[in-house]
């Protein structure tokens, strides 16, 4: 097991947003996290990276290998972020820095975490762009985010996340902001990268259709707790919890 | 705009209290002032002390009384000035935004031209050309102050104009003037009010600056800027310039405290629109 979250509680402004979340991620597996909007999926992802909004109070355990991320000093945590645990955000139009070249955004944390020099970092950056299938990787390094389409930007954001060879990738609704036509491509890419690189992927989505396409394991969240966890086939075909069943029933044109 | 709660803040309360105090002083200066502001009846250049708590000037006039009477000049004139800027600028901006095309071009290029000049220099030229008097100084400041309102109003009108109800009003055959008055005006008053509050301080600074340069109030008048100027000649006697200067500072500060709170209370998008166009 690569990453284990147990009894994670988060309080923000006097309200308990996460009320004891348990999740386990394994290398080489995509773990789908479903649930309606506001159920706490994003907060769970942010808690892993220690990026919760100001004033959030956290308790529980988030273990990466042997270490508890919640017990780390800010400096230790900074080494984990982007290094061992990386994150892809929902909207690539805003999550990439609009004023830095793609090359800069791909290399800056590599040079910091992996202590690469300029040339090594650039070579690796071009490799990464090829890996996420950006055409003309070398030239793309000199361009800016606004010069790419939404789907391409999300591929770039994935490349940025993969730059330091993380063990865990948290993808928070990576396809929600994209055109329907490019969503499948992004999901297939994530699935392939998970298999090739032996990543533990947490794929957050409120779309069970997305889930059924790529996830190995599925967890369903509601009101800050995980109500059901299990292999995809079991959870989606034979849901134990009534809430999961309700979610499935609301899917248009989905029959078992 | 939800004012009541936003006002319950130290800054707004301080500003409100100071402003109120100055209004009271302005209204009741004849009752409060210990001396006639123009009477040269005290020892000259006496430092602050009993009988003349702010000291006396080089003609033996009581500075405290002059500062109090000064409020009767500066405060109403500044308010009048801002009101006129709002009217002139708001009207021109509304016309500009509503009719667009060459009307818009002409008015806005004119506003640009005014913006290209540092305010004091332009106001100074206007005031000098009109001849030094307090009324002309007010006109001079008006000349430099209207474009800010024109820009803000124009932007807001453009925004409102896009909305359907204005269009449908025009389709129904309402006159342009009527739809400007009924549909557009109510939507722009809030932001304009904030801008005006923030502008009161700037206007007073400019007005007293012109008087300081000798382009505003004439000598015996207890105008604050002119009083500071008279203190330059005898700057050894610090009190001659210090107290009228503090009077300007406190009035401006009060309105800036109020305006700043008001801006925070406004929704962020409007606040930003104001900032971008007005400065």
């Amino acid at each position, binding site marked *: 097991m690569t990453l284990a979250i147990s009894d994670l509680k988060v309080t923000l402004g006097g309200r308990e947003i996460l009320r004891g979340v348990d999740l386990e991620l394994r290398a080489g597996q995509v773990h789908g996290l479903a649930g309606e909007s506001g159920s706490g999926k994003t907060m769970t992802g942010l808690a892993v990276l220690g990026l919760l909004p100001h004033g959030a109070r956290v308790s529980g355990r988030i273990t990466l290998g042997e270490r508890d991320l919640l017990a780390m000093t800010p400096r230790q945590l900074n080494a984990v972020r982007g290094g061992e645990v*990386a994150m892809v955000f929902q909207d690539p139009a805003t999550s*990439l820095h609009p004023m830095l070249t793609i090359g800069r955004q791909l290399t800056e944390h590599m040079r910091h975490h992996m202590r690469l020099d300029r040339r090594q970092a650039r070579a690796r950056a071009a490799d990464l762009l090829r890996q996420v299938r950006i055409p003309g990787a070398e030239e793309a390094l000199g361009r800016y985010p606004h010069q790419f389409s939404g789907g391409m930007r999300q591929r770039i954001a994935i490349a940025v996340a993969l730059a330091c060879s993380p063990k865990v990738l948290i993808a928070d609704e990576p396809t929600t902001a994209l055109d329907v036509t490019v969503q499948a491509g992004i999901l297939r890419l994530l699935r392939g990268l998970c298999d090739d690189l032996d990543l533990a992927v947490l794929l957050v989505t409120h779309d069970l259709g997305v889930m059924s396409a790529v996830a190995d394991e599925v967890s369903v969240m509601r009101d800050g707790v995980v109500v059901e966890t299990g292999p995809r086939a079991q959870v989606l075909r034979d849901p134990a919890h009534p809430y999961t069943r309700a979610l499935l029933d609301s899917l248009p044109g989905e029959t078992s | 705009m939800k004012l009541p709660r936003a006002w319950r803040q130290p800054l707004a309360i301080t500003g409100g209290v100071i402003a109120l105090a100055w209004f009271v002083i302005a209204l009741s200066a004849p009752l409060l002032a210990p001396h006639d502001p123009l009477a040269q009846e005290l020892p000259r250049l006496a430092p602050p002390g009993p009988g003349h708590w702010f000291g006396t000037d080089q003609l033996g006039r009581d500075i405290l009384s002059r500062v109090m009477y000064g409020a009767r000049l500066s405060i109403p004139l500044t308010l009048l000035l801002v009101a006129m800027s709002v009217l002139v600028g708001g009207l021109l901006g509304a016309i500009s935004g509503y009719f667009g095309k060459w009307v818009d071009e002409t008015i806005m290029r004119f506003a640009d*031209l005014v913006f290209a000049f540092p305010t004091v220099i332009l106001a100074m*030229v206007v005031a000098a050309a009109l001849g030094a008097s307090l009324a002309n100084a007010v006109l001079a400041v008006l000349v430099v102050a209207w474009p800010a309102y024109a820009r803000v109003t124009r932007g807001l009108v453009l925004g409102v104009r896009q909305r359907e109800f204005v269009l449908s009003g025009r389709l129904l055959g309402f006159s342009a003037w009527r739809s400007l008055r009924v549909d557009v005006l109510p939507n722009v008053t809030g932001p304009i009010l904030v801008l005006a509050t923030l502008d009161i*301080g700037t206007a007073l600074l400019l007005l007293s600056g012109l008087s*300081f340069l000798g382009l505003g109030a004439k000598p015996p008048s207890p105008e604050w800027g002119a009083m500071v100027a008279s203190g330059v000649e005898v700057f050894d006697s610090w009190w001659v310039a210090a107290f009228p200067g503090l009077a*300007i500072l406190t009035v401006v500060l009060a309105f800036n*405290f109020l305006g700043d709170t008001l801006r925070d209370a406004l929704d962020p998008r409007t606040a930003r629109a104001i*900032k971008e166009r007005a400065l």
Partner: protein
Amino acid sequence: MSIKRPPAPGDDPKAARREPGRRGARSPLARFLVRRVLTALLLAVGITLVTFVLTNLVPGDPVAANLGQRALGDPAIVAQWRTEHGLDKPLPEQYLLHLRGVVQGDLGTSQQSHRPVLDDLADSVPATLELAGAAILISIVVGVAFGVVAALRRDRFSDHLLRVLSLFGISVPTFWLALTAFYVLFYRLRIAPGSGRIDPGLTPPPHVTGLYTLDAALAGQWDVFSSAVGHLVTPALVLALYTIGLLTRFTRSAVLEVLGQDHVRAGRAKGLPPRVILFRYVLRPALVPVITVAGLAFGSLLSGTVLVEAIFAWPGVGQYAYKSATTLDLPAVMGVGLVVGGVYLVINLIVDVLYGVIDPRVRLS
């Protein structure tokens, strides 16, 4: 660099987007420059026209302002003075004459100093640029630093303190502050040198830029340099107070806005050091609105020089403008108008170029 060609009407503004990288930056830049120069010319003509109209169509009489009481009583002297200064011609002709002179680099002769206005300006402009330049530098450094601190410590004590301080900064009457600073620092405490640009005993450094500090440093005259810096500090600080307040408020809100943006969180998720997040991810995007305000603030600094120069006996454009405005010295007033309008255009150009440097989206589209 290849030769820039003016934009043709058929040019596709989106061409740069499709043709990315450095190559795409040129044609929009050329377009941008042409547009700027045209605006500048238009504005220059507008400025001459406005100053001309203002100074002619209003009740003030330059003859009365310039001749003594006795001379005014003598029609012959008055008529001669009017002919001498071209005031007997019809107004449009006077304006065209003036405009032609401007184009030829002749701004006319000051009625006050009896010298070419251009020479007067050449003497006074560098003094003001030195003062206003020092003030804007101080304002940007201090104002941005204060604004960043206020934003990062939002709603904490230092934020509230900086808010009150910056509101004070924009509320103090500049002329009064100048006087107070002069009285306290020079007259009472004697820690600041007196008025003027250098100590009276020293000769100004050899003229290169007209900025005494720079010229003295270039000539290696360190005693003159330190005296010039000493004389510059107090008036520059007085002048800067207002713009510091302005920039603090704007930087604060700009930084707060950027702090809430997605790319900052994404940058943190990359594990970049806090220093990098602050400068590269927060401050750089926040600088775009701050630069606009800094450009506008320079205008208000020029306003301030009129008031500050009077107190510190600083021989700059502010004093020159004041003298020529109060005496209705038309050529001088128009000369000041042109210079000031020109400075405004240059500042605008600098601001636009900085936009392009900071934000590639401006450069490439």
